[in-house]
């Protein structure tokens, strides 16, 4: 089983990246679960035709009890991707981090993995690692690798650095490790140089270089990923190549199998493949 957590600054495209990866992995014939870990509960909406699944927190709020069956909080979307959202408390109240922990415990009690036996689990996590709840996806038994999504924008890189440091603080524990950086382009000046400089400094490979694409926006307006709504576009090709490389990386060595782990910064195969995609996708930027 391949289990990855996607982190990054708010609004940087984590859900877009995660949902497109889920869709691409599903197209490869794999059984995929995507778990949105954000109070907004919008991680999986573009796998579900724009109609969101009832989040775990919403379910508990409405019914005043925990769900007793997985189908009460899990819906199948594009390609059979099973979509779950933790959701969160009423804005301004409660504790969103605690909501994630509660959801994870509940999913364990409901035997999520044993029931669906997924090939891939993707966690889409809100923003920075701000408290114990937002570190829950990287604990032992959950994600094995962390993908940090960033653009070349200053604050996105700042958040990416914080995330990398936060995960590194748990090196003494059997937690997930950062596999690398996903460059989601915003077309800011010198973007690639800035992202690579950060990655070099953090000792991380750049795993993917995703083009800015109007197709993504058009598809999301229709409640779809580009894998579903514009499968022939360059962005979709990028996501497919990235998904294939991630799937190849599974196994006992985790990310080391393909990406060389933290110490290997350069020559990541996905990076080179995406250069090709990027060239083909100029018209979409």
């Amino acid at each position, binding site marked *: 089983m391949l289990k990855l957590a996607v982190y990054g600054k708010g609004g940087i495209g984590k859900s877009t990246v995660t949902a497109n990866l889920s869709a691409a992995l599903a197209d490869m014939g794999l059984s995929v679960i995507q778990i949105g870990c954000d109070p907004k509960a919008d991680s999986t909406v573009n796998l579900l035709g724009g109609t969101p699944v009832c989040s775990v927190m919403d379910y508990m709020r409405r019914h005043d009890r925990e769900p007793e069956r997985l189908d009460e909080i899990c819906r199948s979307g594009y390609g059979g991707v099973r979509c779950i959202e933790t959701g969160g408390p009423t804005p301004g109240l409660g*504790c969103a*981090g*605690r909501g994630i*922990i509660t959801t994870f415990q509940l999913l364990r009690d409901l035997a999520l993995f044993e029931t669906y036996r997924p090939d891939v689990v993707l966690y889409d996590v809100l923003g920075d690692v701000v*408290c*114990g*709840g937002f570190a*829950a996806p990287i*604990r*032992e038994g959950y994600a094995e690798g962390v993908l940090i999504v960033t653009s070349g924008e200053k604050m996105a890189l700042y958040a990416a650095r914080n995330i990398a440091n936060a995960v590194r603080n*748990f090196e*003494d*524990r*059997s*937690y997930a490790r950062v596999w690398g950086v996903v460059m989601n382009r915003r077309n800011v000046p010198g973007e690639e140089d800035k992202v690579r400089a950060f990655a070099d400094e953090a000792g991380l490979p750049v795993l993917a270089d995703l083009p800015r694409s109007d197709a993504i926006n058009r598809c999301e307006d229709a409640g779809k990923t580009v894998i579903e709504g514009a499968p022939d576009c360059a962005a979709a090709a990028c996501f497919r190549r990235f998904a294939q490389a991630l799937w190849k990386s599974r196994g006992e060595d985790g990310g080391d199998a393909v990406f060389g782990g933290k110490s290997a910064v350069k020559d990541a195969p996905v990076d080179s493949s995406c250069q090709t995609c990027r060239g083909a996708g100029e018209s979409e930027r």
Partner: protein
Amino acid sequence: MRNTACSIPTYASDTSGVCSALYELGGMTVVHDSSGCNSTYSTFDEPRWYDRESLIFITGLTEAEAIFGREDRLLDDVAAAAAEFSPAFIALCGSPMPFILGTDYAALAGELEERCGLPVLGLPTTGIRTYLSGADLAWTALLQRFCDDVRPASAVTINILGATPLDLGLNGSVDSMKAFFEGRGITVNACLAMGGSLAELRRLGAAAANLVVASSGIGPALYLKRRFGTPFVAGQPIGLFAEDVLAALVRAAESGTDMSPCSAHHGGEGDILVAGEAVAAASLACALERETGRACRVFCPLGRGGEALAAGDVLLDAEDEERAAELFAGAGAIVADPLYRPVCPKGTPFLPLGHVAFSGRCHLGTIPDMTARPLAEAFDLSFGKSHGGKA
């Protein structure tokens, strides 16, 4: 059900269950909680505290440490204490505030183990679940780490599982059980864990059958069954029912089949309602039926021990005072901890039987050693007097 307890206390928590389960096993139990809370776990819920030492510590969690996630201080303090006291193992468990914070006990245990060079158990107690789940959690984790690969004995050799003062009180009943079995030619290999030791725990696999005397022992019994194939028998050898337990142990050892002789009481619509932990209450129900001829029903609000119950008994997943009052109202007589009296109907005969997990040390004196002796020696089985509780 509203799961409320307004006039009656709540049962001891899983944290107390861990402390009680490990009390005599030579380890160091550390509860992640605020300073002063050791009183809850180790004095109110632990009658051995005044007579016997045990290494039970509180981390002294402060508001600032909670906010800043200063788990480094916890690790430093535990490592320092371990260096000073050299325990056989460390058990780290929690309380409600760390539960809300999402403390990762398994990860902390891993770090401590690396640092101290000792076995460390990370036990994710919440302070919200029952003492039975805490004791079960602690023992099962300990068995996984310490139980040796031994060959089952050929003779009829048993272990006693689930023995803590929280259920048995402090009245010599474990010694009486051992004497009863030994006197009938059955060797007691080990007791988990009153009067037991880590050395005994290591050889738990050598028994031909396990006797579960409280439902906290069911988890360890299932573990031993999986690992060694040892069958278990649920029941306490109390009153004249002791002979049934003995016979079930012999049959279980011979056949390898689990047995629950204490579920042989009447159950639904029984005349006498026995409230408490499932195995103890069901065993008492059997013993009472034997001596009084009156049908007994069991009410257990602790959510565990269904294996011990009869059809028509009531097992609730949570305490619910209103449901308890309904059940007591329909009973011809009641056997329960004295602190249940406020929700019992006035005029219904009430036999007080203390339960440490419910009333702490308040009613220790009402918990007699009932092992293999007629209940009439300990109780007025005519239920002659009503209790005078509220209408």
